[in-house]
């Protein structure tokens, strides 16, 4: 079948245009990333064509830059806390949407998913008002609460998609054989949802590491990495930012490839995040 469709087009002029278009789109998507990486090794600084004077200077400066590493530490801390919060409330939320009836369920579902599609500024500002009204001092803690709350949506959608594929007979059997709900939850439900949960955890971690719009309003004295970068960008551009971005890019690429390998072995398909997109746009 695939062959048939392809034969229709192969050699036709339309298909060559299509291919050219796709190559152009890929070039567009990768151009800034290529520039970013190349100029992290550029002795003459950012910009200027052609790049010249290959150097590792910016990486050396970066290694000695205590403020950057402190912000990386803060970001890791925030991402971890956000992951814990989002999973702790996102998994039960998915279970509730799957198997409980309660008044306001439709509203609850929309509310949980809203931060995913809403511009970050609205989530950030509304939480700022809450913390202000409660007279909480802004700090890394408020950012953790903000990220955690906004990213419950990710945990819920991923786990909910996993629940749809889950065979309920196993849980029923467990209950029939005398296990308590609590035992069934930990021994049957959670192990069966392992992959969606790991997938959600990775997504939440990465999204939190990169989040800036919500953090922008909830920041106290300690910076997260994106806010540290933001502060420096306002003062002027330095290739050090290219260097740290290159390192993070390589690091996340390795993580993602490892995750896909794992998932491919288990399920033979790679569509992490696909549920996310579909569930937000097709409520």
């Amino acid at each position, binding site marked *: *079948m*695939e062959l048939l469709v*392809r034969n229709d087009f192969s050699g036709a002029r339309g298909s060559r245009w*299509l*291919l050219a*278009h*796709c190559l152009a*789109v890929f070039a*567009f*998507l990768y151009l*800034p*990333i290529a*520039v970013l990486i190349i*100029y992290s090794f550029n002795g003459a600084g*950012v*910009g*200027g*064509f052609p790049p010249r004077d290959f150097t590792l200077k910016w990486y050396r400066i970066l290694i000695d830059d205590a403020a950057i590493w402190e912000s990386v530490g803060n970001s890791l801390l925030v991402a971890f806390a956000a992951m814990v919060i989002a999973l*702790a*409330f*996102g998994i*039960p939320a998915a279970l*509730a949407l799957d*198997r*409980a009836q309660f008044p306001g369920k439709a509203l*609850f579902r929309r*509310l*949980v998913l809203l931060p995913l*599609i*809403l*511009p*970050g*500024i*609205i989530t950030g*500002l*509304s939480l700022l*008002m*809450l913390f202000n*009204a409660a007279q909480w001092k802004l700090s890394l803690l408020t950012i953790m609460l903000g990220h955690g*709350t906004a990213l419950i949506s990710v945990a819920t959608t991923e786990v909910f998609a996993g629940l749809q594929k889950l065979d309920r007979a196993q*849980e029923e059997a467990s209950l029939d054989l005398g296990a308590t*709900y609590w035992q069934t939850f930990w021994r049957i439900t959670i192990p069966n949802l392992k992959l969606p949960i790991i997938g959600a955890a990775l997504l939440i971690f990465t999204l939190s590491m*990169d989040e*800036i*719009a919500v953090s*922008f*309003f909830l920041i106290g004295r300690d910076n997260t990495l*994106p806010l540290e*970068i*933001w502060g420096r*960008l306002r003062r002027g*551009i330095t290739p050090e930012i290219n260097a740290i971005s290159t390192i993070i*890019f390589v690091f*996340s*690429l390795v993580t*993602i490839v490892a995750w896909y390998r794992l998932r491919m072995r288990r399920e033979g398909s790679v569509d992490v995040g*696909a549920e996310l*997109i579909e569930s937000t*746009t*097709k409520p």
Partner: protein
Amino acid sequence: MFSRSYRAAITLPPLIWVSVFLLLPYVLMFCYSFWTVSSSQQILHTWTFANYSELVTRQVYWQTLLRSMWIAARVMIFSLLLGYPLAYFLSFHAGRKKDLYYQLVIIPLWVSYLVRAYAWKTILGTDGVLNTLLQYVHLTQHPLDFLLYSPLAVVLTLTHIYTPFTFLPIYAALEHIPRNLVEASHDLGASPTQTFWRVIFPLSIPGVIAGGTFAFVLSLGDFLAPLLLGGPSGIMISNIVVSLFGAAYNWPLGAAISLCMLGLVTALLFLSERLEKKWSFS
């Protein structure tokens, strides 16, 4: 099969958390939008429509809102124009390399949003990569200074950022099209072009609507790309909100604008949901 206490245990914690950290903040924002600020910068908790009437009467607010919508609309159109053919190619012509190409579309999403916006700044700047390249190959004598600090730079950067987001739902919609429909159309003598416009495209419309909504809504609320690349003519509505919550210190007015944005976004989501339902074939 699940007992009441089990259902309560899975329902109550998220319900309470979401009420406190999502619902309550929106309610607060709603209240704020009807309050005012005194001349000594105290929030006055008296209920008034003053903020909303200021939004309607002061030109700068609704003009900036219109400009933001125009920027977002262009981002949406360009992302669709870039994303749709890509999704179509992957779904129907990529064969075995489909998964690889799919990953290639997703990978840019793992580079920080901020960093990609910054990379565009280094490309478009007066001493940037593009300008020095053009001079290097002697296409221009002087740097083109209209590239950076314009609405165009914002549109370009946001298009770059939201094209993968637009691609994903379109690709999902195309993947869900039963291949035997395409086959049938072919067998009944339709040309590839006819098959595309009469079978494939109509069935992919829900994906197009979802992807377009993503690009429009998310770029409408952006304030970082305009700050980095927009210059004075590229200011968007969220930038005004940011300044109202910062230096200008008028939280109530900022809340009113945010609430208008929230209303606009929810209306759009509702509309796109309706349209998707109308166009889905199952």
